[in-house]
């Protein structure tokens, strides 16, 4: 592997990311999957980086799941998205910052469609006007939340309390970066580093002391795939995808996985447990699972946020061995304590993949 | 002098081979199926006995068939076989007449000169000696040819000669030594006693002039006896086993025993009857057109005798049957090859000496393992009731001209017919049989048979000789099976089909499966003579060639097939015919690719010759414009 070659490609795929004044739109599913992540993102942006991030409570789904699940027609989707743009315009913001990769991909796709087919945009404007009476301006800048963290990775690094380094050996942690399919596979030029060798997460990992590993099935989908997971009969395909990735990364003995998509951490995390139940297989070193994180969680960890504030207790694949590896101080007893009450009823026995 | 130790090797050999021949014959007889046993008994004690004796005399001794096809090779075989026979016959008479006793032990006549050295000085005795010398000279002349043949086969007019094994070489050497050592032994004895005729006497006196003849004679008598003994003892392990076996074969064949489709004693008898004369090699088109020189029937027979894995040899054959026609011993070579194909891959194994003398009869051809049915996907249906079924065959579907011609002929003949495989049918099963897969073939045969039964037809016409052969031989049908050439001939003869005479020169290529395979030679030629000028090619009937495209061979490459086809096409178009006619879709396709002369199936030529009934003109013919439109549509 020649790193110079990758660097040459990364140089070709740089995108413009706004500096400040972000209009943040949340993901539908992330708040259920890993509710700590978006909170952590806002905390980092507002408290650590001192950025203006605005949220509009009228924001709804972008219909991405319905659109990719072949349920919502494209014109409907465009009109819903046009309403999101209108909300941003009304709020006085121009830099759209979606939390969700699918939303990001969908916005990019719609903006590109309108760019090539202005008559479609006109039609959608008309429809939106008819339905809601709203007007909108197209965003001046569209960046995914991970793009912004990537942009400020050095600032985060400067304020970091921990680094992605094995405390005992001093070696950098081996990190698998997994990029959501809708991030750059549809529009490679809109992703940091392009589609083949994305740099958005790799850049963070490198900056924060870790070592990214490049394994054969790096490009493979996590298996969420909307129709694959949402229909129970298809779930075998979903889990097979994740398994393919785990089999491929296993020889590299990864310490952790970092992701930037709502679905990926969910499935890479939960399917490890299911595969273990079905086949008794684990993929981490020492027979443990490989902990899976969102980039916000990783950023929060290196900044020294409390793991339980980040919501790491919501992970099915146990994170605590990794926390110990990095040397993060945390209170194991406080894992399931919320407002002084232990909420852990009867779960932990099988929630860990060991 | 009544006895000398040197006769012991001869005696051992002689009695061994006699006992062995009896034992082996008994085994063979026992192994014959019950009907075959009865046949042989009837044949042996019945009126075919004389015929068998005649054939033994003509073929085993005189070698008439070889003489006919290759006089020099025939002379070689005749001199050795017939000469030796005469030597024994006249030797026995000599011992009986001139010896001390009548009815002597065999060695007395074989070594007569040793025991009666003074014999032959004058008169009748001298004349008899002259006769014996003449016979010996006759044999030695053949022997000389045989020795030369080993080193240069062209002398006896053969292109190829079979290769030998070690045991064959030892046996051959001992055979070669027999007559020269007799010559020398007799010559020395004659030299010492001043007897002997023009050969032994003259040679004897020359030798005696500078050698101690008395002392020299004895070792050569030993050599003579040893050669004979060795030859007799090794005989069952070598190709010379054909000498005694052929006698058995002639009786068995004349009794009506056939190879059949199961391995048995008759198969073994035939295999041991092959003398490796090599005539099949010369007849084989794979040899002279495609340069394949190691798969001919002589090699197959030898491979089986030596217990080798012969599957590659067995499958590399066009199954054209030319060698069957030429084999001087009359071995059913193609049916024997089919038996080897049915066996699939045989296992090569080392044999003990005992096994070599008495081969394991049961494990020679293991049955193919049983398997589930292969063609369960075939569904029966109800074909339309009809009088005549036309079954074009798979290959005919690749030569639509034949198919269309046959439809035209059937229409013109006015018979009620059903084109059974118009939309593509099930294979007849013959190709599977040719690949040794009879069980699978039977599935297809059953399927097709049911359809034919259900149609209620009384006649089945096919365009493909491959189909024709299997319909004839392996289907149990209550219908008359006709190749289309036969059908056309019938239709012409009963006046159903009216044909023009086409002024074309035509040569005819007889397809193997139809001609040699099924014996249909005349009908296609009769039909051709009816519509065109048929020229002879020099490769008529049994001597016809194979086009090279045969389904019988699954081993040769398309290049080799085309080499054969080009040679054949060149031979058959030598006299520049207008059309090279054949009566097989496969032959047509193969030959058409190998020549610029038009190649056509008989059906095509006949279809061209059909006299179309005059179209009655309608009185109210439409006006010109409408007519033009009609023409345009045509």
């Amino acid at each position, binding site marked *: 592997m*020649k790193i110079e070659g990758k660097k*040459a490609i990364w140089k070709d795929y740089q995108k413009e990311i706004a500096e400040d004044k972000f209009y943040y739109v949340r993901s539908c599913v992330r708040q259920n999957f890993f509710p700590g992540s978006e909170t952590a993102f806002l905390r980092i942006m507002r408290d650590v980086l001192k950025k203006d991030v605005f949220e509009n409570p009228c924001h709804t789904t972008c219909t991405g799941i319905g659109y990719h699940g072949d349920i919502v027609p494209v014109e409907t989707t465009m009109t819903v998205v046009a309403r999101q743009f209108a909300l941003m315009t009304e709020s006085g913001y121009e830099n759209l910052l979606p939390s969700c990769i699918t939303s990001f991909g969908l916005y990019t796709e719609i903006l590109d469609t309108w760019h090539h087919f202005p008559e479609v945009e006109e039609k959608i404007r008309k429809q939106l006007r008819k339905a809601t009476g709203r007007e909108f301006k197209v965003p001046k800048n569209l960046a995914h939340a991970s793009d912004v963290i990537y942009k400020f990775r050095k600032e985060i690094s400067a304020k970091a309390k921990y680094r992605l380094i094995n405390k005992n050996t001093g070696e950098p942690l081996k990190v698998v970066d997994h990029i959501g399919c809708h991030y750059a596979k549809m529009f490679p030029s809109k992703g940091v580093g392009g589609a*083949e060798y994305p740099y958005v997460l790799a850049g963070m990992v490198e900056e924060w002391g870790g070592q990214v590993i490049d*394994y054969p*099935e790096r490009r493979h989908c996590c298996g969420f795939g909307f129709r694959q997971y949402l229909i129970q009969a298809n779930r075998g395909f979903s889990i097979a995808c994740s398994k393919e990735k785990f089999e491929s990364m296993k*020889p*590299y003995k990864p310490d952790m996985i970092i992701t930037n998509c709502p679905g990926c951490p969910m499935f890479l995390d939960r399917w490890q447990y299911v595969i273990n139940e079905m086949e008794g297989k684990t993929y981490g070193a020492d027979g443990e699972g490989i902990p899976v994180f969102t980039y916000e969680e990783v950023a929060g960890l290196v900044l020294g946020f409390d793991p339980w504030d980040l919501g790491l207790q919501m992970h099915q694949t146990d994170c605590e061995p990794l926390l110990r590896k990095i040397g993060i101080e945390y209170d194991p007893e406080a894992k399931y304590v919320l407002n002084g009450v232990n909420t852990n009823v009867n779960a932990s026995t099988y929630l860990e993949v060991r | 002098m009544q006895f000398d130790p040197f006769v012991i090797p001869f005696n051992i050999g002689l009695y061994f081979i006699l006992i062995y021949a009896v034992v082996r014959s008994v085994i063979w007889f026992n192994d014959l199926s019950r009907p075959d046993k009865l046949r042989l008994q009837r044949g042996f004690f019945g009126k075919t006995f004389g015929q068998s004796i005649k054939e033994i005399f003509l073929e085993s001794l005189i070698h008439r068939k070889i003489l006919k096809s290759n006089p020099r090779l025939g002379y070689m075989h005749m001199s050795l076989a017939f000469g030796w026979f005469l030597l024994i016959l006249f030797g026995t008479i000599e011992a009986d007449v001139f010896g001390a006793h009548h009815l002597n032990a065999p060695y007395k006549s074989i070594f007569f000169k040793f025991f009666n050295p003074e014999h032959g000085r004058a008169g009748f005795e001298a004349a008899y000696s002259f006769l014996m010398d003449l016979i010996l000279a006759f044999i030695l002349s053949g022997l000389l040819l045989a020795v030369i043949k080993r080193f240069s086969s062209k002398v006896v007019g053969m292109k190829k000669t079979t290769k030998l094994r070690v045991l064959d070489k030892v046996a051959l050497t001992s055979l070669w030594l027999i007559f020269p050592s007799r010559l020398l032994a007799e010559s020395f004895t004659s030299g010492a006693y001043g007897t002997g005729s023009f050969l032994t006497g003259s040679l004897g006196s020359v030798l005696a002039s500078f050698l101690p003849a008395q002392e020299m004679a004895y070792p050569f008598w030993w050599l003579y006896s040893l050669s004979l003994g060795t030859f007799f003892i090794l005989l069952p392990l070598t190709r010379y086993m054909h000498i005694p076996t052929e006698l058995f074969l002639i009786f068995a064949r004349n009794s009506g025993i056939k190879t059949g489709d199961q391995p048995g004693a008759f198969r073994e008898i035939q295999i041991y009857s092959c003398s490796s004369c090599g005539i099949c090699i010369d007849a084989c088109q794979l040899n002279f057109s495609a340069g394949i020189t190691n798969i001919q029937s002589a090699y197959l027979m030898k491979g089986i005798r030596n217990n080798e894995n012969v599957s590659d040899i067995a499958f590399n054959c066009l199954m054209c049957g030319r060698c069957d026609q030429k084999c001087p011993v009359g071995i059913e070579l193609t049916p024997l090859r089919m038996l080897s194909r049915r066996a699939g891959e045989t296992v090569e194994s080392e044999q003990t000496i005992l096994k070599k003398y008495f081969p394991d009869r049961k494990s020679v051809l293991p049955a193919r393992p049983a398997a589930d049915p292969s063609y369960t996907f075939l569904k029966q249906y109800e074909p339309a009731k009809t009088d005549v079924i036309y079954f074009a065959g798979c290959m005919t579907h690749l030569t639509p001209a034949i198919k269309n011609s046959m439809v035209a002929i059937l229409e013109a003949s006015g018979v009620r017919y059903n084109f059974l495989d118009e939309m593509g049918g099930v294979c007849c099963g013959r190709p599977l049989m040719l690949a040794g897969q009879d069980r699978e073939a039977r599935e297809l045969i059953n399927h097709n048979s049911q359809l034919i039964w259900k149609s209620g037809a009384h006649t089945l016409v096919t365009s493909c000789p491959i189909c024709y052969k299997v319909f004839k031989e392996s289907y149990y049908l209550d219908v008359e099976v006709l190749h289309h050439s036969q059908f056309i001939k019938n239709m012409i003869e009963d006046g159903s089909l009216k044909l023009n005479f086409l002024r074309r020169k035509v040569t005819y290529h007889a397809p193997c499966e139809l001609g040699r395979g099924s014996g249909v030679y005349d009908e296609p030629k009769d039909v051709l003579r009816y519509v065109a000028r048929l020229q002879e090619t020099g490769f008529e009937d049994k001597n016809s060639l194979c086009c090279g495209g045969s389904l019988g061979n699954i081993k040769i490459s398309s290049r080799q097939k085309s080499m054969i086809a080009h040679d054949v096409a060149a031979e058959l178009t030598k006299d520049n015919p207008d059309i090279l006619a054949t009566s097989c879709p496969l032959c047509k396709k193969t030959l058409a690719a190998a020549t610029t002369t038009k190649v056509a199936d008989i059906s095509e030529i006949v279809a061209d010759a059909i006299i179309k009934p005059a179209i009655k003109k309608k009185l109210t013919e439409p006006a010109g414009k409408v007519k033009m439109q009609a023409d345009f549509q045509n």
Partner: protein
Amino acid sequence: MNKHVVVIGGGVAGMEAAGQLRKTGFEVSLFEKEEKPGGHLNKWYKLFPDRRPSSEVKEYLDNITSGEGIKIITGKTIEKIVQNKNQFHISDKEGSEYTADAVIVATGFDLFKSARKEEYGYGIYDNVITSADLEEMFRKGSITLVNGRTPETIGIVHCVGSRDEKMGNLYCSKLCCVTAVKQAIEIREHLPSAKVFCFYMDMRMGGAYYEELYREAQEEWGVNFIRGKVSEVSESINNRLVIKSEDTLAGKPLKMLVDMLVLMAGMEMSEEGLKLGDSSGLKRGDNRFFSPADHHFGSNKSNLKGIYYAGTCTMPMNITETISHARAAVMDVIEYLKES
């Protein structure tokens, strides 16, 4: 005085044109951007379909272009042609000017830059090389991996940068298929135990004896052909290449490990040709090659009278076609100079 013709580009087309022009008695100047003429021929080891050494063709071209009447000017990149009545003023990168009565443009082709097909990882994965790199190995006489070992399994990808809408090249480069087959055979000659797999979209064996070579590769050299373009390459933990393609004829996706992957880079309009054409007003087609005045009977004529094309600056061609095309250009020049 003799008429003076300038030939731009000292590859096969340029050298052949120059040689033929000299024969007819013109003064010829041949400009070559590299230090020596020969173009791509210098980089190739053996030629398809008969695997004759490329040096033999080079030798022929050197012979016809040496001696009186031809001036070979190397190391000069011509940037602009300006017509002034019957005179052409030609200027190079450094600003030097030359004049001519007629011009033959033979700027040739560039090999497609394989790094642009990012998914193949050329320049990233150690043992992903191009057809040109492989020729270099043939010249050196050893096919080795970066770590010095000998490859056992070698994949060859056809159509890299050709027939590829994403790369902006809709055309077929025509020679890559036969080059792949030739190189597959040469690999097997060098490494008799190596296994070679060609991943193709279509086998376009249109030239004389190309199809025969393809058959030879299958029959005698046991080269495996898989119909399906490689879509993804990654490196395995032990430094082998994991390639993914669909075996479209088996109707299944296929994954395979190879030690080396050879990319059959296609042909593109040369960068120098692009610059020269745009600055001189020479028309180009959608495929970016020079667009001849007529595809059937004017394949050497440009849109400017007195400027003619020879060789692969108009479309992908093999050497035989290039030489014929160059000779035809000379015919056009003769006719033009006779008229003027």
